[in-house]
């Protein structure tokens, strides 16, 4: 039953073969998950997940919960923006969590305050010269360390032809070692007031969403974006059409590393401390956000918007579990099932769409 119509320029097109953008499917899944939690909440808790069922706010929504849903995924979401670009090139970045750990320790060492409760800072890493520095210093150090790790990843992947999985696995172990070595396992605490503002309140969300908008445009309307998709779809074709593939890959990994470094700065600022174990398994959560959001691990397919919705899905699920007071032991089991289920559903839809076309 094909219903042909007249399109622009006298071309005909088949309405039945028209596809929804993939992001709409992911968004529908988000709405579905919210509805499931609302139903379970009404049955078991006599409360609503997203709406103000206790008259605590002036609005119709439970604002506190809406905020935490995004706050708790914002920092890993920033990493996921970079990881999305890496995956679109058909690569992978396993190092982002450890890079967060190493960057956290190093950047925080330049953000420490001289006096705590009227005494000297008991956690000072360097001498007086590194205390009470302007905020811009630790931020630049953080971005720098992250980008350095990214460049190394990129060079290894692009020029030595080591598979991304192995190259970034090496960086994952190396960076975690750096994080532990930096202060021999000691936490680095007590940042300056200025540094503490970077990750306070809704700041992680504002930074996350601004970066998402920025990279949405970059990926869709710039040469950088077109080349990234081209390399992921068909690297040989991209090379033959004149794209400097190795140089572009280094750039992609550099951006991913820089975003991981920025995430570390925000994370340490939010928590007022840096610890060598920080960022543990963040790389997997970031990959999960991208994959749930419809980014294909085979490369060439996916979008920043999809990843943002993927992050929101994880945020809704995390808050939903706590809202339902689901036992801690069951949460990870259910989360594992949801991630596999989401990708299976996506694959099935792709196949169906391909069969129709």
């Amino acid at each position, binding site marked *: 039953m094909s219903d042909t119509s007249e399109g622009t320029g006298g071309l005909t097109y088949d309405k039945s073969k028209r596809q929804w953008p993939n992001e709409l499917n992911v968004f529908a899944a988000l709405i579905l998950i919210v509805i499931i939690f609302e139903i379970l909440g009404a049955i078991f808790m006599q409360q609503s997940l997203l709406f103000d069922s206790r008259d605590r706010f002036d609005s119709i929504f439970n604002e506190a919960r809406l905020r935490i849903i995004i706050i708790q995924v914002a920092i890993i979401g920033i990493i996921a923006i970079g990881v999305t670009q890496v995956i679109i090139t058909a690569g992978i970045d396993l190092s982002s969590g450890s890079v967060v750990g190493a960057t956290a320790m190093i950047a925080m060492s330049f953000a420490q305050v001289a006096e705590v409760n009227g005494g000297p800072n*008991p956690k000072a890493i360097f001498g007086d010269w590194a205390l009470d520095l302007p905020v811009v210093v630790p931020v630049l150090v953080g971005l720098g360390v992250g980008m350095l790790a990214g460049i190394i990843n990129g060079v290894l992947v692009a020029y030595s032809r080591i598979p991304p999985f192995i190259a970034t696995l090496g960086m994952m172990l190396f960076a975690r070692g750096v994080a532990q070595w930096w202060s021999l396992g000691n936490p680095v605490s007590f940042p300056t007031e200025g540094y503490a503002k970077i990750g306070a309140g809704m700041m992680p969300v504002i930074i996350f969403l601004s970066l998402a908008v920025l990279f949405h445009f970059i990926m869709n309307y710039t040469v950088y974006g077109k080349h990234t998709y081209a390399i992921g779809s068909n690297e040989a074709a991209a090379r033959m059409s004149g794209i400097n593939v190795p140089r572009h890959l280094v750039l992609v990994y550099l951006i991913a590393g820089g975003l991981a470094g920025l995430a570390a700065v925000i994370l340490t600022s939010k928590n007022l401390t840096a610890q060598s174990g920080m960022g543990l398994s963040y790389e997997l959560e970031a990959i999960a956000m991208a994959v749930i959001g419809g980014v294909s691990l085979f490369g060439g397919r996916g979008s920043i918007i999809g990843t943002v919705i993927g992050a929101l899905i994880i945020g809704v699920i995390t808050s939903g579990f706590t809202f339902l007071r689901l036992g801690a032991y069951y949460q990870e089991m259910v989360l594992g099932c949801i991630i596999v289920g989401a990708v299976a559903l996506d694959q099935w839809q792709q196949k169906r769409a391909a069969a129709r076309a």
Partner: protein
Amino acid sequence: MNKLFMAAGLTMLMGTSAMAQQIGVSVARFDDNGLTVMRNGMTAHEEMLDGVSLQIEDATDDVAKQLDQINNFIASGVDAIIVNAVDTNATEAMSNAAAAAGVPLVYVNRQPVNMDTLPEGQAFVASNEIESGTLAAFQMCRQLRAEGKSGGATAYMLMGQLSNQAAVQRSKDFHDVIGMDMCNFITLIDEQTANWSRDEANDLMTNWISSGEPFDAVFGNNDEMALGAIQAMKAAGISMDDVVVGGVDATSDALLSMQAGEMDVTVFQDLAGQGAGSIDTAIALINGEEVDQTVFIPFKLVTPDNIGDFLQ
């Protein structure tokens, strides 16, 4: 007072009359924070004692190296050996080597796997993990009572990694305490894991706050999670005077938070005390005294009243 002087005089007499006692010490690693505190406790105690000389070596986290060190101690004729085991599953060989040579052996801080079959002349010095969670939970209960909430109070608990023994034990301790008659006015609203992490605890606490359920106390299996909860509560505008927050570890971050009037309770593992206790136990074994196979060094409760003793 006289008795004290007599006792002091007596030990000095004994110290000078006997030959200097050589004790060999093998520590799992020198670059670990906690173990460094323990090691410093040992050397400080050595200086206080007369006629005791320690030889402390770093096993650099190497099981084979540690066993070599012990055999070297035996060969050089030390009077006793203290071991902070690299791998608690590898202590059988150490026990056998020391027992065969007739040298007293004291394990410190890490419980040897052959605890039940320790030979004569060997002992284990550590803190009893059951105490830490119980001390913190009970103090929180007392504080809630003192604030006049004994008619009914609600609490949240942040658990460590669910696969970790300390997390399981401390969570059980909390349940045991709120099961006691004196503390059963406390109702646990919810318990979830935040994997020892300040960031996860911050987000989890914010989630709990968003449910709007009023609460009076938050217990973290460690200080880091308690601090994360405090940051979440402060961000939500909850006064720290209205909530009793407890943790375990007495980290310097936690002590400074307590000093600032936020954290209410934490528990200090007396690692320096463990180091000193291991030397006392070794000396008792050398002198052929009756020694319990397990010597517990008590945890210390830290509250705003005695925080001065713990801030350096």
